[in-house]
């Protein structure tokens, strides 16, 4: 069962394939934020994310004829974006500027200054913790939490088995937990029992 939005996006892709540039631009407008977010979470730098978002849309445009209409458009687009970011991370590791961490999340005008600071601190923690993960584990986590994709969908997008995605997701959460553990469990400033690192699992 396809949703109305999904049907519309599918029509845009098919129209763009036949030469309708406006249809492609509608797709760009609809996916600019998710693609930018995915690139930012993966690369950890706003400038890199911006450049990556442009490259990803160019890649999508070039692959319009390869689109299979039976495949959900969002999964197809996110899959291209995911592979691009992993390739980019493998070819060169971007430098994560600590000043930029947390500044990407716009504060709501109703937010109290304390909650803005708290949100930015949490955001900085998330980006630092994500940078400790391998590109593949990070991608699984980003697709699951920010893009609401199930393990089956992620497996199909990244060409992995369902079991491998579950393992990666669990491993990523454990590593993040290891990162957070000393901040949550401090007994008089002394960290309690550390979380076992299961990098090899």
């Amino acid at each position: 069962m396809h949703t109305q939005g999904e049907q519309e996006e599918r029509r845009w892709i098919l129209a763009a394939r036949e030469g309708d540039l406006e249809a492609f631009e509608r797709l760009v407008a609809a996916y600019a934020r998710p693609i930018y977010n995915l690139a930012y979470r993966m690369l950890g730098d706003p400038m890199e994310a911006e450049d990556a978002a442009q490259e990803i849309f160019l890649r999508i445009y070039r692959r319009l004829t390869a689109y299979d209409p039976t495949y959900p458009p969002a999964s197809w687009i996110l899959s291209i974006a995911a592979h691009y970011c992993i390739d980019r991370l493998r070819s060169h590791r971007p430098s994560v500027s600590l000043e930029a961490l947390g500044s990407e999340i716009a504060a709501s005008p109703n937010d109290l200054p304390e909650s803005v600071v708290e949100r930015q601190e949490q955001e900085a923690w998330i980006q630092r913790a994500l940078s400790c993960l391998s590109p593949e584990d990070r991608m699984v986590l980003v697709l699951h939490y920010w893009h609401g994709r199930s393990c089956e969908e992620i497996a199909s997008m990244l060409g992995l088995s369902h079991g491998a995605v579950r393992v990666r997701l669990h491993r990523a959460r454990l590593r993040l937990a290891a990162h957070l553990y000393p901040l949550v469990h401090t007994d008089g400033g002394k960290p309690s029992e550390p979380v076992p690192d299961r990098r090899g699992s």
Partner: protein
Amino acid sequence: MTCEWFRERMAEALEGILSDAEAREWEAHRRTCHACRALWEVMMEVDARLRTAPMAAPPPDLSQRIRRRIRRQIWWERWGAMLLFMTIGLGIAMFWKGTLQDMRGWLADLWDLIPNLGSLFWELIRIPITFWALMMLLGMAAVLAMGIWASMRAIYRTRCF
């Protein structure tokens, strides 16, 4: 029930997909093991932080910039490449001006040879083996031409809006 089992089942516990029996056993271990309980609390905190983390907002003009870049790309693929090849062709023509002028003489000589080549061709195709070889070559050329046409059509559909 071991700590290892407990930790392996944390993902299922987070998603709430443990069976009733497993959930009871898992809960019992959580209550009695301090280290696993502490880890579980951190896992819950990690999950909560990730679930509440908003999407990063792109610069307001990002969509506009992407559109401009794609339009530039289309223009380049449609006209820029052609202009570049024409410029290169013109450069080569200028560089080899003398040779090209000499070519007029070679072409004139070739033109004189054409009647002789025509009669040679008719003599050759009377021999069955050369006739079949020629037919085979023509067939291959037709298949190649169709292949090139199909590829060009696919490229045009992909790149030309």
